[in-house]
């Protein structure tokens, strides 16, 4: 028998037993247990096996610094690799130990996750005596205070060791402080909440574990974990310290535990971790644990590295019947599956070397205290610098960081915490003992078992191999050995490793330095970080006012940026190709309509609006007459096409500019950038009206009849309403605007009405067109129609490396204007090369053969690798109007290759093609007026 639950004591709730399953065995713990304390209480102290060597692993600590007791949660839902010391016991929990790797579930996580924002004047991290004191002091002044602790209740070390504050038991004192804090409206106390990241300007991240501990009693829909995004003026870090292990042979055996952990298990969980105990220490802090264990009935021997110990401790131990062996090392822990004894040896004063014969002591629990490391992870994340304190043999804070305060022993003392008792948990001078020389008699077997990083199976010898290999930086040693890279991120092993290296290199730990602390402080679930931003909420979905109609009529949708656009409207059983063929025939021979509302629309107005557009577009816009429309091209300063669209002059000082769907926001930003930063003297205002207007192109030879019927007040005849003109109109009873714009080459009218009336007007269009066979069409048909006319789509036929001239849009580039954005770049040598890629059309030699988009253009059918490429296919469709497949392509010197036979190569297919003009249909434009 080793560990066992005592019949009384502890702060567990013995009235609330919890059934759980460990590695297939049913066990019982209590409310208030961790999985680790429940296992120890059940006499189980071997948890898993080590990652590289397969050695047994036990329970080392009682908190987040745990380096050995790694478990896989199986129920209620699989979760990989958690320290058993941080898993709160819950009814129905099932878990098992692991060997180095956790296992992910093979099904979706049904839990919910969320995030909250909070603002504070003071954030206190850690609810021990120091943190509670700091929180209370600030709270009483009315400051907004957040107190966060990863434990299930406040109290910190007071819960662990039973110290007194202001003369009352620590738990009782903490409960009193909590009661006062809870009564104040300006205080938020977050337990089960780990502060894991410190970022700039007081931005602090914490994760709250909200429902696992409730088991089946958790309210459905309650978030399992919550990320707190806290913005605070000041952060008090009161996170205490981690006790440090010592590297001696077999120090990884189950039954080897940090002294403070045994104290915690005893006081808090009423678990006596062993009956026959050896405590190996370098300092006085562990004597409190010794006293408590003896009081609980354990037999205990202390092996202290110091030649002498403080007189008070000495006499105290004598009174308690504790044997203290000073000036000795524990050289080896004995045992194979778990510890059953130790060998000890005397040491030279102040020296690391064992001198003389060893003795053996039997034990079933070996406690270790190599000193304490203040938990400075968060301070270091905040870019506080650390310095090595020779007295404490630990890194301590060495700089002030704006917005941060550290609260430790001093704060606790000022709160009435009494460290005068020599047994009390206080920071006494520590001797820098890192590793113990290997026993001369080879007790530990052939290989070095002095583990520095128990989780990564890194031994002293491996570290010495690293320094022997020429490594002088801790970062290199870490990478050579993998020291400190495990789940605990070196919380207890990091400094130990530094100590070993410094000792070997003959330099001080201070000189060597430590590795960097990085977020998160302890592991955080991916799903917690993703929060609610998953599934439909991953990214906003934008839909037009007509979306319900599209849904009701079976449209298939295409994602265009955040928009859902109708892609095509299949009739039952119809494929994409069949639907597109039907839709495009309707547009070319009858009438068709589409939802063009996603088109970016920007209202540009002001006395200098025309001058501004002249700078922005390659074409001259100031000459545009009121009521007229002009196609325009925009370039970046590099002369490459950025966007295109139409410019409608609604009034002398007012324009409506359209952009491609994907670029709407970017172009508005683009305008603002120039207006605000470069030409602030221009009197121009730009505002997005994309969502204010629904745009419905009505397209086809019969479109005039439909529009005339919808808007009887407008004379839609070619003479009265010419191409590229705009008219205010009442459309189906709604005030709106009709533009004679065509993106298909057909007679077309774009109806614009306020979005509020969008669906009603759309339905009116469908009704008015019914007698003419009106057909709704989607983006795919739109692409076919425009491609037959050789209109490029920015982003599909362009890739940011093409000038207007490359695209054959030289006609849209003004020669009159002294300057516009991009003009200067046209004159660069590279932009005038004759072999630049030109936008051209391609027809397959066999009209039935499709030309795949993305095909590369090559000059011969025979391919030899590497094969020179002349360009690529940007768009490829089957055209009902042409009776053939066709494509648009960017081809080097393409305009000089008209009629040339080339080959399109795609995934091993070779298609013979003929280069043509990019305009394949109605080059003369006879169809646009109907």
């Amino acid at each position, binding site marked *: 028998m080793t560990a066992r639950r005592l019949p009384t004591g502890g702060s567990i709730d013995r009235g609330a037993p919890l059934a759980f399953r460990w590695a297939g065995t049913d066990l019982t713990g209590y409310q208030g247990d961790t999985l680790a304390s429940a296992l120890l209480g059940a006499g189980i102290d071997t948890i898993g*096996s080590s*990652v*590289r*060597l*397969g050695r047994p692993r036990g329970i080392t600590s009682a908190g987040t610094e745990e380096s050995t007791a790694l478990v896989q949660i199986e129920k209620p*839902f*699989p*979760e*990989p*690799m958690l320290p058993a010391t941080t898993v709160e016991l819950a009814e129905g929990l099932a878990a098992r130990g692991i*060997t*180095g*790797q*956790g296992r*992910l*579930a093979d*099904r*979706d*996580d049904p*839990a919910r996750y969320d995030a909250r924002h909070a603002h504070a004047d003071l954030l206190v991290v850690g609810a021990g005596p120091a943190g509670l004191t700091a929180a209370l002091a600030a709270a009483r002044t009315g400051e907004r205070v957040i107190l966060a602790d990863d434990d299930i209740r406040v109290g910190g070390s007071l819960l662990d060791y039973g110290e007194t504050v202001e003369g009352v038991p620590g738990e009782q004192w903490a409960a009193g402080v909590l009661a006062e804090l809870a009564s104040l409206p300006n205080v938020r106390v977050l337990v089960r909440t780990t502060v894991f*990241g410190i970022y700039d300007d007081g931005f602090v*991240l914490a994760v709250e574990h909200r429902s696992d501990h409730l088991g089946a009693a958790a309210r459905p829909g309650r978030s399992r974990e919550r990320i707190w995004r806290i913005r605070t003026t000041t952060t008090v870090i009161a996170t205490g310290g981690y006790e440090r292990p010592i590297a001696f042979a077999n120090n990884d055996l189950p039954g080897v535990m940090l002294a403070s952990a045994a104290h915690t298990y005893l006081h808090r969980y009423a678990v006596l971790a062993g009956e026959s105990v050896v405590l190996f220490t370098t300092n006085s802090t562990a004597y409190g644990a010794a006293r408590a264990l003896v009081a609980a009935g354990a037999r205990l021997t202390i092996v202290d590295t110091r030649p002498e110990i403080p007189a008070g401790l000495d006499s105290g131990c004598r009174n308690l019947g504790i044997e203290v062996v000073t000036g000795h090392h524990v050289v080896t822990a004995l045992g194979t599956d778990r510890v059953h004894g130790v060998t000890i040896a005397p040491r030279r004063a102040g020296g690391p070397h064992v001198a003389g014969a060893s003795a053996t002591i039997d034990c079933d629990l070996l406690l270790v205290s190599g000193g304490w490391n203040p938990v400075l992870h968060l301070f270091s994340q905040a870019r506080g610098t650390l310095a090595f304190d020779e007295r404490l043999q630990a890194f301590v804070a060495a700089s002030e960081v704006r917005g941060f305060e550290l609260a430790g022993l001093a704060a606790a003392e000022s709160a009435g915490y009494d460290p005068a008792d020599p047994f009390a948990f206080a920071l006494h001078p520590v001797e820098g003992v890192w590793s113990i020389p290997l026993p001369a008699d080879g007790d530990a077997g052939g290989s070095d078992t002095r583990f520095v990083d128990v989780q990564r199976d890194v031994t002293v010898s491996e570290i010495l191999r690293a320094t022997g*290999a*020429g490594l002088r*930086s801790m*970062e*290199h040693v870490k*990478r050579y050995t993998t020291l400190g890279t495990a*789940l605990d*991120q070196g919380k207890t092993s990091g400094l130990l490793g530094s100590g070993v290296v410094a000792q070997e290199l003959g330099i001080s730990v201070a000189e060597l330095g430590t590795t960097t602390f990085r*977020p998160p402080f302890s*592991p955080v679930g*991916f*799903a917690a*970080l*993703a*929060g609610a931003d*998953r*599934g*439909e909420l*991953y*990214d906003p979905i934008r839909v037009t006012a007509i979306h319900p109609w599209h849904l009701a009529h079976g449209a298939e949708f*295409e*994602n*265009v940026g955040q928009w859902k656009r109708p892609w095509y409207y299949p009739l039952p059983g119809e494929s994409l190709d069949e639907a597109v063929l039907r839709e495009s025939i309707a547009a070319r021979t009858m009438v068709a309509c589409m939802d063009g509302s996603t088109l970016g629309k920007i209202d540009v107005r002001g006395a200098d609006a025309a001058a501004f557009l002249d700078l922005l577009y390659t074409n001259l816009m100031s000459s545009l007459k009121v009521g007229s429309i002009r196609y325009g091209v925009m370039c970046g300063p*590099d002369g490459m096409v950025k966007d295109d669209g139409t410019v409608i002059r609604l009034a002398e000082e007012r324009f409506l500019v359209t952009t491609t769907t994907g670029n709407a926001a970017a172009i508005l930003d683009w305008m603002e950038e120039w207006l605000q930063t470069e030409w602030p003297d221009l009197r121009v205002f730009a505002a997005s009206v994309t969502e204010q207007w629904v745009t419905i192109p009505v397209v086809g030879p019969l479109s005039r009849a439909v529009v005339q019927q919808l808007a009887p007040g407008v004379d839609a005849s070619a003479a009265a309403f010419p191409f590229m003109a705009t008219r205010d109109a009442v459309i189906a009873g709604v005030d709106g605007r009709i533009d004679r714009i065509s993106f298909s080459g057909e007679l077309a009218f774009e109806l614009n009405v306020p979005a509020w009336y969008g669906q009603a007007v759309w339905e009116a269009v469908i009704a008015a067109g019914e007698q003419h066979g009106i057909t709704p069409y989607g983006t795919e048909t739109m692409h076919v129609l425009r491609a037959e006319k050789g209109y490029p789509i920015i*982003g*599909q036929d362009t*890739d*940011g490396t093409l000038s207007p001239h490359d695209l054959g849009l030289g006609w849209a580039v003004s020669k009159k204007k002294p300057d516009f954005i991009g003009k200067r770049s046209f004159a660069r*040598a590279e932009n005038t090369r004759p072999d630049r890629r030109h936008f051209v059309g391609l027809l397959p030699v066999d009209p039935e053969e499709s030309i795949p*988009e*993305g*095909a590369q253009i*090559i000059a011969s059918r025979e*391919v030899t690798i*590497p094969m020179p*490429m002349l360009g690529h296919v940007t768009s490829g469709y089957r055209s009902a109007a042409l009776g053939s497949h066709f494509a648009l392509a960017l081809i080097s010197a393409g305009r000089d290759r008209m009629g040339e036979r080339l080959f399109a190569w795609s*995934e*091993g297919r070779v298609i013979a093609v003929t280069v043509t003009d990019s305009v394949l249909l109605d080059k003369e434009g006879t169809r646009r007026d109907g």
Partner: protein
Amino acid sequence: MLDTTPGTAPGAALPDHPDFLWRNPDPKKVYDVVIVGGGGHGIATAYYLASRYGITNVAVLEKGWLAGGNMARNTTIIRSNYLWDESSGIYEHSLKMWEGLEEDLGYPLLFSQRGVLNLAHSLQDVRDSKRRVNANVLNGVDAEWVDADGVKELCPIVNISPDVRYPVLGATYQPRAGIAKHDYVAWGYARAASALGVDLIQNCEVTGLDVRGGRVVGVQTNRGTIAAGKVALAAAGHSSVVAGFAGIRLPLQSHPLQALVSELLEPVHPTVVMSNAVHVYVSQAHKGELVMGAGVDSYNGFGQRGAFHIIERQMSAAIELFPVFARAHLLRTWGGIVDVTPDASPIVSLTDVSGLYLNCGWGTGGFKATPGVGDTFAATIANDAPHPLVAAFTLDRFRTGALVDEHGAAAVAH
């Protein structure tokens, strides 16, 4: 060697490093070539100068610890499926060198050609992907287009449901692509270079460049002045500052780029998956940890850290694509500094200063290019003329406009 002790986690062990890695010499007064920057590129360049060109009187000056910059911080993806001829040329050269590198260096690199999938989530992604696949194949780079079911076959944990916000429509697949273990690569080069006589000098920060009569003659450092016949810059994000010592202005902006790892997990992810549209790239490293890259922070920054909302966004995207990742844990985040050029292609170039050579602007592509750059930059230095495979990557191209625009071509980054 790999541990196969019963009861240990499969694959959880890494091969041992050699007993000796490199000397720690004090700087000499004079070197034939001084390389500024002891990252992967700097060390590899020194190795090839020594091994291929017999130039062994070489110092690599590193201001911190060797290979502690981006070499220690990247997500180790290796691939060559870039769009333009110039890009795929240098990266494919590099990939071919990767394929023989373990043998060349006599060092285990955990080079794993497990394939890389670049996902397409929109019809335009599909077009761009096919364009790139076709260009790759015609350039002799292994590449294929796979549909969503094909993606599922290669990486069963990818969610290919059409009902997600941005469904997977397919992917480009490069079977020869993969990952390697970054430290092992750097150290393999360092050990080999040191053995050939190259001085690897750490904690040596360059504070000035000595230029006389249009020719570089040495460097000033915090450890004194060092004379040099030639000086080669391989200082990644810090290149602007160092080049500035010689009055050379570079079109670089340095940005934070973050990455992260999970705890060690049993194997779930057999390949490498990248998605530009939802900003994910992830692989499962040899030990079992998921290694993921996040997006670039928008602002210039030399702090080797970024903002946390980038990580949160990354997690959302990862779970969208890989729902089984939900309960994995973020173990560690860190940041590197990527130096980005206007066309997202590197600069490997002679300069107006005789004997001064530039290698920078690799953005997120630096690790995979390490062998290729080392080889071609060494050639450029040794011959005082650009190696043909990097001839397009001159500094001058930003003057003439002859860009190699991997941004505009929508090629995936990283």
